């Protein structure tokens, strides 16, 4: 036998022998370790039975104390807790942050289906597949957001029950008939949402649009029910002086319910549009190809268009809400507009002014994507002057922060000239002109690169200009007239002001559509050819919208001051005080930051769709020689 074969056989025998020997050694080792450990384990020292040994006075004392505590605990009757304390930040801030996060996600989840449905409908009508793709892309953001909304909703409910049990119990007793429909609608919402999302392209377009419509109707109904609870807290109705329920329907349909419903539907669209535009901006900045940039530029444009279109009527819905608050209680109205919260409205004016400026700026930057834009660029400076002036008027405080020497130099706490800009007439006028100016910016953008060829083009342009000038003149005239009439008449003047602006916008748009029918194009729209700063503007708009929602939500809720339900259920918790505006803005800012971190996660999860499968990436990496670590 050759040596090598001999050695191989020996090795095999050795291995066979080695197995049992190793097993025995390990077994012995295990026994040894176990017995060593057992022998060294802690053993209680022997004690004599309690009955056999004399108890020390300390042991006797401890036993007596324990027995006493037990007897006391048994004798104490069960008392329902009124409040419980949340550690570190306190109950109010905890509820505030969770409620705000729930609301922000809920607003997003309600808004996205609204404009996804509209965009899908436009796609169906026009036959342009881009719209369908865009609507689907928006909808992709929905499913994760829906789960987060529901999670925050449950979180909020638990927090209310834990931290404010007595008040929550009262709300539940008033609104008990509304809870079952609410839960039921949630089931429908889930059904419509998931069939709408997963059924994309699987049904006849009309059936799919029907699902979208159902989703929107159910979502809006859910919001209406939840709005009843929170508006009741501010303007309770349908209850006796002691808080007993007289009519649930009256409690639902209280003073501020419908204004809040309308305000929120509009604001949700604006907010959802802006967040979707921010998503597109984020993708645009990440894009590596011109095609991607073109798509996300267009998506950002549409999202922003939806946001700004909804944003324009929002101040009017806000006025209605404020009017109803005044109608319900003079005290609430004064607290809001002239009292402790009035300075927040200056912050609001600054934010809204920034939003208008940013929206116009985005449109002006957008003109750069159209060839042959130069002739219209010259109008920007006039629009800008109008916007800056209106912004300044809106941000002028009625009660000016001033040193004693400044007050004396002015001759009073209000400035003799600027004092006129701090009141409603001036602010109403400013916001209406801002809206008109923004509309004109959009109109300029719309006609960039086009020349009207209809025979009545000159008359059309002149007519548009005349309508614009008339609307502006009416707004300014009524604004000035408002200084000479009593407050209730002045507030009513806002209706013709708004109407003239709306009529002007509609009539100018209608003329524009016919004016530019069959227009000559001087240049094509080059989607994606826009400076990156425009995308940061979109992100800025989304963040500002969110911040604004948080801030104004605080005003609405904080107005009640030391009441859970205004005038009925008093807040007797340690948090029953109005925090400073600085503190409030910090809480709102932290919440907004949390929201954007979470929405970033939503965007990331939504983007997993587009990611190639792991195995494919592994193969691709194998071909290109990329290390395994890059496949994570």
């Amino acid at each position, binding site marked *: 036998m050759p040596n090598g074969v001999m050695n191989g056989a020996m090795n095999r025998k050795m291995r066979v022998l080695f197995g049992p020997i190793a097993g025995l050694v390990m077994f012995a080792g295990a026994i040894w370790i176990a017995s060593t450990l057992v022998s060294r384990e802690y053993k209680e020292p022997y004690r004599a039975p309690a009955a056999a040994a004399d108890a020390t006075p300390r042991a006797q004392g401890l036993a007596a104390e324990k027995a006493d505590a037990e007897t006391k605990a048994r004798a104490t009757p069960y008392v329902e807790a009124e409040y419980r304390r949340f550690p570190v930040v306190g109950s109010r801030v905890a509820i505030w942050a969770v409620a705000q996060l729930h609301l922000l996600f809920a607003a997003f989840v309600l808004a996205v289906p609204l404009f996804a449905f509209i965009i899908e409908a436009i796609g169906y009508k026009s036959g342009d597949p881009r719209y369908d793709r865009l609507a689907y892309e928006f909808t992709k953001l929905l499913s994760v957001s829906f789960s987060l909304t529901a999670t925050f909703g449950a979180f909020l409910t638990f927090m209310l029950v834990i931290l404010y049990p007595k008040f929550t119990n009262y709300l539940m007793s008033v609104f008990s008939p509304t809870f079952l429909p609410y839960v039921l609608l949630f089931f429908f919402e889930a059904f419509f949402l998931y069939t709408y999302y997963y059924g994309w392209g699987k049904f006849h377009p009309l059936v799919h649009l029907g699902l979208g419509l159902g989703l929107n109707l159910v979502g809006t109904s859910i919001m209406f029910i939840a709005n009843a609870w929170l508006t009741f807290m501010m303007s309770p109705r349908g209850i006796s002086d002691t808080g007993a329920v007289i009519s649930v329907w009256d409690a639902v349909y*209280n003073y501020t319910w*419908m204004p809040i419903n309308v305000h929120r539907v509009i604001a949700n669209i604006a907010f959802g549009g802006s967040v979707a535009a921010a998503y597109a901006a984020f993708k645009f900045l990440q894009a590596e190809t011109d095609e991607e940039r073109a798509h996300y530029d267009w998506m950002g444009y549409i999202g922003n268009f939806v946001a700004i279109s909804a944003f324009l009527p929002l101040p009017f819905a806000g006025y209605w809400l404020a009017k*109803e608050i*005044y*109608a319900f209680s*003079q*005290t609430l*109205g*004064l*607290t809001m507009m*002239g*009292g*402790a919260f*009035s*300075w927040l409205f200056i912050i609001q004016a*600054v934010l809204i002014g920034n939003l208008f*400026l940013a929206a116009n*700026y985005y449109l*002006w*930057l957008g*003109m*750069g994507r159209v060839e042959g834009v130069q002739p219209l*660029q010259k109008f920007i*400076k006039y629009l*800008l002057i109008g*916007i*800056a002036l209106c*912004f*300044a008027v809106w*941000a*002028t*405080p*009625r*009660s*000016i*922060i*001033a*040193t*004693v020497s*400044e*007050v004396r*130099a*002015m001759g*009073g*706490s*209000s*400035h*003799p*000239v*600027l*004092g*006129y800009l*701090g*009141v409603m007439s001036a602010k109403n006028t400013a916001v209406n002109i801002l809206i008109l100016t923004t509309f004109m910016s959009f109109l300029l953008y719309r006609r960039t690169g086009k020349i009207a060829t209809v025979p009545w083009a000159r008359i059309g342009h002149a007519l548009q200009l005349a309508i614009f000038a008339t609307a502006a003149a009416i707004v300014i005239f009524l604004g000035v007239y408002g*200084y000479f009439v*009593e*407050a*209730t008449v002045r507030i009513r003047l806002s209706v013709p002001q708004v109407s003239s602006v709306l009529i002007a916008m509609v009539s100018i748009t209608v003329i524009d559509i016919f004016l530019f029918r069959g227009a000559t194009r001087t240049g094509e729209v080059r989607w994606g050819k826009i*400076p990156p700063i425009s995308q940061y503007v979109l992100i800025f708009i989304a963040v500002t919208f969110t911040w604004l929602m948080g801030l104004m939500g605080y005003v609405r809720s904080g107005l009640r001051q030391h009441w859970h339900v205004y005038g009925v259920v008093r807040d007797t918790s340690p948090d029953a005080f*109005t925090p400073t505006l600085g503190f409030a803005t910090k809480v709102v800012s932290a919440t907004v930051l949390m929201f954007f971190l979470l929405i970033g996660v939503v965007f990331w999860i939504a983007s997993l769709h587009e990611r190639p499968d792991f195995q494919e990436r592994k193969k691709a990496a194998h071909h290109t020689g990329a290390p395994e670590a890059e496949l994570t």
Partner: protein
Amino acid sequence: MKVPIVLAALAAFALLRLLRVNLLVWAGAWWLGIYLLLRFGFTAPIPSSVIMIYMGIVSLAILAYVSSSQPRRDEVAGPLVRFMTEKRYTPLLAATVVAIPALAAANVYVRMNVPVEPPLFSRTVHPASPADITVHDKRIDLDAGENPFRHLEASDPQEFRRHVENGRRVYYQNCVFCHGDTLAGNGMFVHGLDPIPTNFADAGTIPMLRETFLFWRISKGGPGLPDEGGPWDTAMPAWENFLKEDEMWDAILFLYDFTGSRPRGREAGTK
């Protein structure tokens, strides 16, 4: 407005137009021109807090304009890039680098080198009234209530005038010392008061309020102001201790009558 300053600003702009300066200079000139106008162009000076808000808006607007199109961006960025990259500007660039922190330091010095004054006071416009008050053992509903003599204006003008005249008497016997002969908040005691009394002739004061609100402020005065929004630091006495209820309602009629303004009516809700 101070006309010479406005004219000087206009002349400076005309000169810039003649010189056909580039966009960067225009942007700087606009910023500086508006600042000077706000700071020195008004007879009653504008408080610095408001100038700050306005200048923030102006800065944003100018930045938006100069970056709104590619040619404008190039026109503004060009001189700046040249300034920072061309060798001939190196000494000037070094001077600028030194000047920036020096300016910040100078700003700190100027801001700190001011006479000692009470801190900035952000007074809320109107304190929030309670829903109801009790005056001379009578409950007054501030939300739903009305001035009991207001209806006389239409139903019995003669009687209404009598109440207004009584209000005039009450005002000139009690309120004139702080609120002044013409109700402009400039009575003889005004120099000793901070905050100064309300100017009833100002369109932003009583025309914005309901008569019940005025009744609350007069009857309960400074001691009756809410905790929220304080400290109020007002010297207004609680007039319920000195006047009858009817006298206070009459004084309110007089305030509106004298200033020619109308009280705010109760909002009719759409509910």
